[in-house]
Structures are given as C-alpha cells and as structure tokens.
C-alpha cells in the first residue's frame, strides 16, 4: 500500500507545531501502525530529517504508553485496540492519514506525538490506593470473601491502562472514565470501602485542579477506550461522590 501521512510536528512544549506531510510506500497490511511509523522514521533518518517522536513501549496493548489520534479518533478507527495493536489492514491503498497527539490542556505536548500524562499519576497520588502497609502481615487472602460478580466488575474496572484515550476523545477533555475506573475498582471491594469517602473526594479534587473538562455523558470515552471500560463506572463514581459530599 502507498499512503500519505499528515503528521503533527512540534519541537517541544513551548513551541508552536504544525502538520507535515510525508508519503510512504510499500506498507504491508500485516504491519502494526507503529511498525509503519518505524519504517517512516528509518526513512527520515536516512534523509537527515529528525524522526517523529511518539510514545510506545510494550507494543502488545497493555502498557498504555502509545497515544496517537489517528484520522480524528483516539487510537485510530479500530475498536478495543491501542495504536500499537492497530494494523495497517484497516486502511486502504492511497489513503491520507492524519496523525496528531492526544490533545488536552492537562496533557501538554512533549514533542511531536508524545504528550505528558503525569496529570493521571497525580490524580492517583491523591487517593488511588488502599492504605495498607506492605509488610505482608495482613489477614489470609481467603479470609476476605468477595462475591464473584463484584470481583469480576472490580477487575473490569481495574483493567484500565491509563492511556488517556478517554480524555483525548472526549469533546470536553474530561478524565472521568479514567478516574472512575479506579474509584469503582476499590468501591466494589470490601478492602476499598474503608476509605471510600476520602478517596473519591480527593481524586475528584485533584482531577479538577489538573484542568480536565467536565463530563457531559456523551459516551465517546467508552466507545474509544481500548479496554472497553464501562460508563457504569462514571455513574458509580458520581454516586460515590454524592454520598461522600453529603457525609462530609
């Protein structure tokens, strides 16, 4: 396949960026999107052009590091995949593909397609944990029984990979799906209920301070989430937040 790539280039956080156009030839449909980018970068290096910076690591869809906005969608046109698991067979010969970084005020561009998502980390520092010492001197694991459905739903929420596609795709750049996934995981488990009030208040406060937008329930995040995290989690967090606010 022969393709035209319109790629966002930006030297660093403070400079202004713009689109550059690069043609690429002989793309195999079996390539992953990032392998196609590798090939392009190899060509750019040979031509003496600065290669395109993009974040990536595990390339098997679990680390959450890759983060491209492809043809107007987070992680591109396929569903339930990260950019690294998007394959070129989803495109046609002759296509022009627009590639941008995830855009949000809370995710400043580091360079080209790489963005700084440390806002997510800071939200987690505010309460994304259960306050238990790591001494191992806890009760036996089977002393806490958890209903299978709750355990499964907690797991489903916990599979969030923190890639930021929800923020990138939301028209309001809201981080509600990400934050609610963590709040939900703990809210569903007896271990997490002990400090549920403080957790949700602190995490939401930090989320707001980071400059993410508000949730208007468009549902776009759920559609674009590579792990299919459900909107139910946002409702659960809203519930937790209301209860916590009333409690104080």
């Amino acid at each position, binding site marked *: 396949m022969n393709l035209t790539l319109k790629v966002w280039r930006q*030297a*660093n956080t403070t400079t202004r960026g713009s689109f550059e156009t690069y043609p690429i030839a002989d793309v*195999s449909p*079996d*390539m992953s999107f*990032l*392998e*196609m980018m*590798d090939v392009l970068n*190899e060509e750019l*290096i040979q031509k*003496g*052009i600065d*290669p395109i*910076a993009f*974040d990536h*690591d*595990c*390339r*098997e869809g*679990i*680390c*959450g*590091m890759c983060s491209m906005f492809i043809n107007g969608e987070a992680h591109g046109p*396929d569903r339930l*995949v990260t950019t690294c*698991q998007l*394959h070129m067979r989803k495109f046609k010969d002759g296509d022009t593909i627009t590639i941008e970084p995830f855009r949000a005020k809370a995710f400043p561009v580091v*360079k080209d397609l790489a963005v*700084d*998502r*440390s806002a*997510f*980390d800071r939200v*987690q*520092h505010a309460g994304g*944990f*259960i*306050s*238990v*010492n*790591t*001494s*191992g001197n*806890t*009760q036996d*694991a*089977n002393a806490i*029984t958890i209903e*299978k459905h709750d*355990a499964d739903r*907690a*797991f489903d929420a*916990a*599979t969030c*990979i923190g890639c930021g596609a929800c923020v990138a795709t939301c028209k309001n750049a809201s981080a509600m799906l990400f934050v609610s996934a963590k709040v939900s995981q*703990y809210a569903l*488990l007896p*271990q*997490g209920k002990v400090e549920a009030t403080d957790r949700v208040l602190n995490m939401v406060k930090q989320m707001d301070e980071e400059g993410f937008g508000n949730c208007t329930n468009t549902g776009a995040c759920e559609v674009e989430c590579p792990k299919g995290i459900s909107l139910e989690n946002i409702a659960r967090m809203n519930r937790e937040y209301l209860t916590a606010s009333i409690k104080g």
Partner: protein
Amino acid sequence: MGTLNSNIPKGPLSDKWTQHKSNINLVSPANKRLIDVIVVGTGLAGASASATLAELGYNVKTFCFQDSPRRAHSIAAQGGINAAKNYQGDGDSTYRLFYDTIKGGDYRSREANVHRLAEVSANIIDQCVAQGVPFARDYGGLLDNRSFGGVLVSRTFYAKGQTGQQLLLGAYSAMNRQIGRGKIKMYNRHEMMDLVLVDGKARGIIARNLVTGKLERHGAHAVVIASGGYGNVFFLSTNAMGSNVSASWKIHKKGAHFANPCFTQIHPTCIPVSGDHQSKLTLMSESLRNDGRIWVPKKIEDAKAIREGRLKPTELAEEDRDYYLERRYPAFGNLVPRDVASRAAKERCDAGFGVNKTGEAVYLDFAAAIVRYGKEEAHVKGLDENDAQLVKKLGQEIVRSKYGNLFQMYEKIVDQNPYETPMMIYPAVHYTMGGVWVDYNLMTSIPGCYAIGEANFSDHGANRLGASALMQGLADGYFVLPYTIGDYLADDIRTGTIATDTPEFDTAEKEVQDRLEAFINNDGKNSVDYYHKKLGKIMWNKCGMSRNEKDLKEAMTEIKELREDFYKNVKVPGGLDEFNEQLAKAGRVADFLELGELFAKDALERNESCGGHFREESQTPEGEALRDDENFTFVSAWEYNVEPAKAKLHKEALNYEEIEVKTRSYK
C-alpha cells in the same frame, strides 16, 4: 574485586531466612529518615521495593524511563503468580514449590534463595488481596487457581490474562500512596546513565532527563537496580521496546559481576514473525497450554501443502496429526516446562513440519477443548450433548470466558479467528534467568548496590517455571530487600547526605557527557536500529534455542566486529539537549553490543545442556538435554575486564543440602 561470597546463612534450610531476619542489623525509625535510597526501575520489583522502603521510613528516589511508573513491562505478564497456599488441597506446600522451582531451573539456582522465595510466596497473595488486586474468584467468593507448566498442582493465582497488570497496578498504588506522602520522589522519563562509586561503595547515579536531555546527579546511601531483563539483545523478543540492559551493564562495568548471561528463556507460545518490519513479538500466555493441544502434520507433504495454502489445518484427519509433546512426554504432555516445549517445536520445524509461510510455526489447537467444555456445559444445562453445533457454541463461550482477551489479541494481530482454526505459535525470547550476580542479601559485588527482580540471577537457575517471575519480583521487592538492605545501611546512620559536588560525581558525569557527545557528533551512515537488528540476527541464529561451539565462537567475533562498526558508523540524529529517542536508544544498543558478546562467551564456556541452554555437543541419543553436574554445578559470575571476551570468570559452587540432584524428566 574479592572472591565471591554468597553470604548464605548457616542452619537448616527451612530456618535460614527466619534466623537471618532475626540476626541482621536494623536501622531505627528515627535514623531511616536520614538515609536515602535510589531505586532504578518500577516493575514489580522496583515498585514494590520503593513502596516498602518508603513505608519503612527511608527517603526513596525512584527512576523510570517511561512516562509513568505504571508502564513497566511487568504489566504485560499474562498468566499468573505462584504461591504455596494449597487452597486447592492438592498436596502443595512450601517445600513442593521450592522443589518444583529448583527442578524446573534444572538444578542451577541457589537453593537458599529459592527456599526463601517459596516461604514468602504465600504472603504475596495476602498482601496483594489487601491492596485490592482483583484476583479471579469462584462462586463461593474464594480465590481461584490454575495449573501451569512443569508442576503437578494448581497453585497459580490469576486475574484473567492480565495478572501482571493487576499486580503491577497494586504495587504502583502502594507507590502512589508514598509519593502522595512525599516519601518517594518519582523521576519519570529519566534514564540511569551510570553508577557513582565513592570509596568503593555505590553512592549515587548520573541520570538523564529524557525530556530536556539534561544530566542530573543524584546521591544516595544505596542504589537498587530493578531494571528487568535483557531479552532485547535478540532485537525481537516479547519484551517492551524500551526494555534494556543498560542499568545492569553500567553497574557491571563498575564492578558488579554478571551471572549466567546465557540463561535465556525462549517461550514456546508466541505469535510467529510475519515479516521484516516486525518490531516485537507477542506472547500468548502459557495458560493456553492447559486447554490447547500442540501439533504439526504427521506427513511432510501435508505440511508443505499447508504452507502453500492448498490445505487447511481443520481438514487434516486426526490420524494425520502429530501431537508431538503428548507423544514424547506422556506424563506432562502439553504442560512440559517452557524450554522443553520450545526445543520440541524447533525440532519439528527444523525437520520441515512447520506450518506457516516461513515454516516456523506449529499449531495450538482448541477444538478438542471446545468440544469437551461444550459437552460438560450441555450436560449441566440438560441440553443435547450430541448436537455438534450446540456443543461447539457452548464450548466456545467457555473458552472465551477463560482466554477471551488472548484470543482477541491473536485475532487482531494475525487476522484469523482462533475459535475456528488453530492458532499458530512459535517460540520467542521472553525472559532472562541470568543477570547481575547477587548474594543472599541481594547485594551485588559492589557494596551498597543491590539488584532485584529479573535484573538479578538467583532464583530461576537455567529455566524459569511459568508464573514464577511475578512471584520473584514481588518477593524481592516487598519482603526480602527491605529487610536485607537494613543490614548494610545500619553502618550509614552517621554518614549524612551524600554530596554530589565531589570529584567522583564530576568524573562520572563527564564520562557520560563525552559518550553522548560522541554519538551525536559521529555523523555515521546507519541508524541505531540497523545495528540492533543485525545483533539480534546473530544472537538468534547462533545463541538461540540450540547452540554449538563453532556458532558461538563465530558469534563472538561477529558481535565484536559489529560493535566496532557501530562506533564508527552509527548515525544519531538530533541534539543532546532535547527529547531524543534515537540518542537514548543508541546508548542502550551500545550496551547490548557488549553484553551479546559476553552472552556468547558464557554459552561457549558452559559445555553442557541445562534448562534453556542447549548445547548440541551435550545431548542424549534421543536428543534430550544432557546436564553435566560434575563439571558445571556452578554459577558463572563474570567480572568486567574492558573487552567482554576477556571477562574474568568466577565460579560460585552450588551446594544442594536438601535436594537430591537428579536428571530432570517430564516423560
């Protein structure tokens, strides 16, 4: 460097750890506040160690090259984590886990370390559940287990196919709590460039801020390396793109011995290579071998027809299939350890029975499991067990609930539906048992420098059993290092903050700066990846699943030549003071180019077959691996000596007190 002292405590094996903990020095809570510890890496080992050290009261500085600690590659571990809980009541015990691990490692691991690992394994599960890790549960609300290769009990705890993710996020959450409290200072997008020694002790690191390109000095009373394995020396592996040996290699160059570099695990169930553009390989969890049957065609002409697309695997009659693992190893069948399964696949493909275009793939078939589960389900629901369509549908649902995410991943990559046609798999580099040599306290041969998790060598011998890596990473980080490091730091309570404006830091920083400038100013013609791919080819072809003297010698020469060419002709675009991925990569590949040669040298030196290391010169008439206990029951610990080929070998003899060393058999 002095002689190797593994510092194994005296006393009966099962009491060593308890007694050791009672006897070692402690640092008082008030004094811990005066002590700084650096941790490099935030995988299971690094994250759990950072969290625990901070919780104990030390000031921790943690570094990772990714944009967040949660990205570390432990996150990709799929199948599960072992623990001797015996919740299934199938005869498991600390001793049996210890025994299985030693045997699985083909009697090349350190007995005392492995026993300690088995002892603390149960605590890990308690700890993780308390932290909110959502392990799989049964309908009674209790924890569920599954079985993994090389063992006869079900002791593996899991969270669907994402156990590593859940455990890492658990450790990350423990870290977050300490970051929020200000006890851990986290440095994301920072790479450790070198270790700084003061009076022979590890006292800090030089790190590079990968965003600004600036070099930074960080002092500490101890440095912990938790930077994972070096599988990416093969270019293609199941490791993450950024996984590298650099932190381990830098400390090796400063005096830490590197142990058993040739012990590499080639995982049998990975998605085969599809073309030259391939950047990494994807693992399909070993748990699939619980239900999948591995086969190739019995007749070579069928294999040829399949390769050419004239025949579909589903069309091949049962009697024309060779379930070679079940044939060769009736006792363990498809659940033989990884090294055995990998070599058997290679043997069949080398003999011409491979099934994809490249001839390097075998089938992993779920058809039988789908029928078996479907019939069970039909029976439970009181439906017709003889309705093939219904049985298939019910069976597929069960298989989906067990392995759904893996099947989906396979379909996305290969574009074939594994519910309908067998998966194609081939072995790929996955884990490195070798690593930085450490003593019982996990301290390297540099005082004050520790190595934990996959970065060290101690627990898995020549082959790691499935679901043991997660166990070791968390055991080291949560329950071993935080105790043993106190023994060393107890002498440092009066040292005060480590100053970084000293000649030692000046020299170290200057060296790093010079190295980076040399890359930028090199003005060569080949990209970094060009060299990495070439190195990978040499490693795979000559130091891969099957090794011999001639190939290994050639590999050493070729790697040396490639390294020299690299320094002459590598082209690194961009500048020093900016986000420059190619520059970061150049430094990592430079280290791989040295490690690769030592790897080949180690493999050459070890003229026996054990675990993942198979020397063609040392095999039984049936082609099984043949160990040489008389001459090789030792750990090869290599001392740096400028040229990898001239590295000095130290042997740590392995003494087995509790275990009778036997031939490993899975027949």
